[in-house]
């Protein structure tokens, strides 16, 4: 706790890094509630393809998003090795299915580089910046863009 507090006061922030396929991504640790193993989800009718369904999180109904499919990559085939990152944005809680959690990164704001100027939808919608750490490239995800807000309503 003191470690966390020290880093926060010195203008640093912590991110959780995870892996999907051969790419690495990260999200702000403050929006992560917990990390849990994969349990089969109940499919939802008329849901977008990247919504795998809902699971029971201690009495609450939690929608699970296949982050790989959401980011426009190939849909995941969930196994017991997959993990769900339970995240909270505003007042909604959503689980993100990823392959594995790799790291907790402590970075400073100035470490975040702007995303290279590309014309893909991915860059415009989801990426908030990239990090270069130990020759790895980790993409910082904008969580709010990931959550289905009104798209499924139209379906």
């Amino acid at each position, binding site marked *: 706790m003191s470690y966390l507090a020290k880093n926060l006061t010195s203008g640093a922030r912590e991110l959780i890094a995870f892996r999907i396929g051969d790419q690495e991504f990260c999200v702000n640790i403050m929006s992560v509630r917990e990390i849990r193993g994969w349990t*089969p*989800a*109940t*499919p*939802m*009718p*008329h*849901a977008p393809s990247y919504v795998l*369904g*809902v*699971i*029971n999180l*201690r*009495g*609450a*109904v*939690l*929608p699970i998003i296949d982050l790989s499919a959401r980011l426009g990559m190939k849909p995941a085939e969930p196994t017991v090795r997959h993990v769900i990152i339970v995240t909270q944005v505003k007042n*909604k*809680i*959503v689980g993100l299915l990823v392959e594995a959690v790799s790291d907790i990164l402590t970075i400073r704001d100035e470490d975040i580089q702007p995303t290279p100027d590309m014309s893909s939808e991915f860059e415009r919608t989801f990426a908030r910046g990239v990090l270069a750490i130990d020759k790895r490239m980790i993409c910082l995800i904008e969580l709010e863009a990931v959550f*289905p*807000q*009104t798209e*499924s*309503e139209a379906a």
Partner: protein
Amino acid sequence: MDMNEIKEIFFQECEEQLAELESGLLRLNDGDRDPETVNAVFRAVHSIKGGAGAFALDDLVSFAHVFETTLDCVRSNKLEPTQDVLKVMLKSADVLADLTNVARDGGSVDQARSAQLIRELEALAKGEAPPAAEAPAPKAATPKAASAPKPAPVAAAAAPNDEGFVPVAFSFDDFGGEEEAAIEHPAYEVIFKPKSELYTKGNEATLLLRDLSRLGEMSIHCNMDSLPPLDQMDPEAAYFSWKVSIKTDRGEDAIRSVFEFAEWDCELELIAADAGEGADGETEELPMQPVPFDLSALDEEPHAPLGVVEEEEQIAAAQAVTAAQTASNVVQMAANASRAAAADKGAAAAAAAQNNAQQASAAGQTIRVDLDRVDRLINLVGELVINQAMLSQSVIENDSNGVSSINMGLEELQQLTREIQDSVMAIRAQPVKPVFQRMARTVREIADITGKSVRLVTEGENTEVDKTVIDKLAEPLTHMIRNAVDHGLEMPEKRLAAGKSVEGTVKLTAKHRSGRIVIELSDDGAGINREKVRQKAIDNDLIAADANLSDEEIDNLIFHAGFSTADKVSDLSGRGVGMDVVKRSIQALGGRINISSKPGQGSVFTMSLPLTLAVLDGMVVTVAGQTLVVPLTAIVETLQPDAAAIHSFGATQRLISIRNSFCPLVDVGRILNFRATQANPVEGVALLVESEGGGQRALMVDAIQGQRQVVIKSLEANYTHVPGIAAATILGDGRVALILDVDAVVAASRGQPLHLETSLAAAG
């Protein structure tokens, strides 16, 4: 505690006082002349004024002050509380409520209206008061003969009031004393004629008479004239009536309070015997020859001087059945009235006469709890239930012999959790009274605007139902009441012409029926004009011009969107968003609404609603490998379709014949997109469901797993609304199951939901 918290408490108390005020005024309006009722009304206004003064709510104080002054005239018998006076007072109570709301939530009041009422009230206070020396100038009328401050926090807080207001305490004994002490032990004649309902509800004439005898010296005569010969006698009927002469110093109220719990089930006449001629006249009126009757003999054979044993046995059984019910009613009433009861002399007398009531009022203490805390508790208990189910399931899976002590412990745990769940649900249960009281105001306002004379009769106000249901009930009810007064009741001239009383009656009742609450709204108006409804439906393309509809189907047409038969669109109702909105909000609560109407005699709307929105009885089914829950209330019957009963209809539609009528088959898996092609109906099970507009559909599912009570979980909390799905729940294995929205599925199967309604006549 800071000022805002105190203020919040004040407003909560205001709400209670306003409710007290309104119910008191309504009692006065019904002819109650009990000085205690007037006092209760006065006290309510007085407390509001006192509290408002402490918070410098000047508008509220000045209005309450004028109101109080006028009420004081009534209290001191200077002003007769006639219907006209009470009309002004009821309106004043409404304005007082408005002012309170404005003081709390901001906004503005209709200044003209309150100013007008202040003038009316002042006129009443001045005009009717005798111009004698003690003539009440508004200020002087406020009673200042305070012996000790009223021990209410409001009054205490009111002490440093700039209005020069002094908290007032008045001894109730004094009130009674002024009027009654002058006459020593006045005599009364009581004629008590029980109906058979009295006995079936477990009351007993003997006990009532015995209670009566405790009030003072009395003599009693039994009238057995109406007793038929034994062979014609109905053992469950009531044949006797009693005439009691009693001398008591406790007053009329004490006598009435003896019969408090029986007054609806008996004919009761109470005559002050001082008016000797009057009493004689009454005796002559009734063809009654008093027979001397010994009360002790009554004790030995309470109902059956002829020794009809069955009667006694039946009554004993009835008593046993209703005893618990009666007791709980008493507790309920006492709890609701506990504040009033504590101060109310009449209730105190009743308590003295009724041991039950006394015990109950001692137990009927209440506390105020933040709703969030209750909801949190309910959520936790919901999770406990799920967890317990999961635990049981895994133990059963791992314990093959099934007799271990773990199993027994689990069973007890299951019972306990269920009991906890029931008790927690009961915390949220509230009487429907506040909603009904709001309706009284709605009726008054609309009656004023339409120029009709309307009386609202309410029954079963203490019926309890979950708070969420109550909160969501107000809007549809208001709408329906408006409709009933605006469209249902005729204008006074028309009523006279039809041989009805000028005053229309709107009746609102609530009762429990098989785990649901049934609310009925009836009026004695003209009923539904079926010709007009039909024509309107044809004009609006709702039905074909030659459709052959039953009366019931025509009546139900008024629930369609965009349907309004009012000739001109009025301010109140008839904006074309009437009954369909009502129906939708009732359905959103998991309820149903029905109408029945008799031309010239009025209409009855019947709503049946679940008692809680937290749990639901559902049928657990399998569809395309997924587990779904179908609300049990929607299911009419289940059946295993026969290949011969399935008929193709057009390219994709299929019908199933059930007892010679055809019902469209709806594949739930297909509608929800769980599978790409329609399943073979013969391999599945059909659930016959009742849908909007009375039409039936057969929902195809793969298999039925069983029937279960499930805890409703919101999907919207973390996700969005899903078409065809009402909510979610968590099953014993810990997985989420979706609860089917039957109406949405049926509507989706229709494509265009409303215009295909014409097929209703053809298919039905």
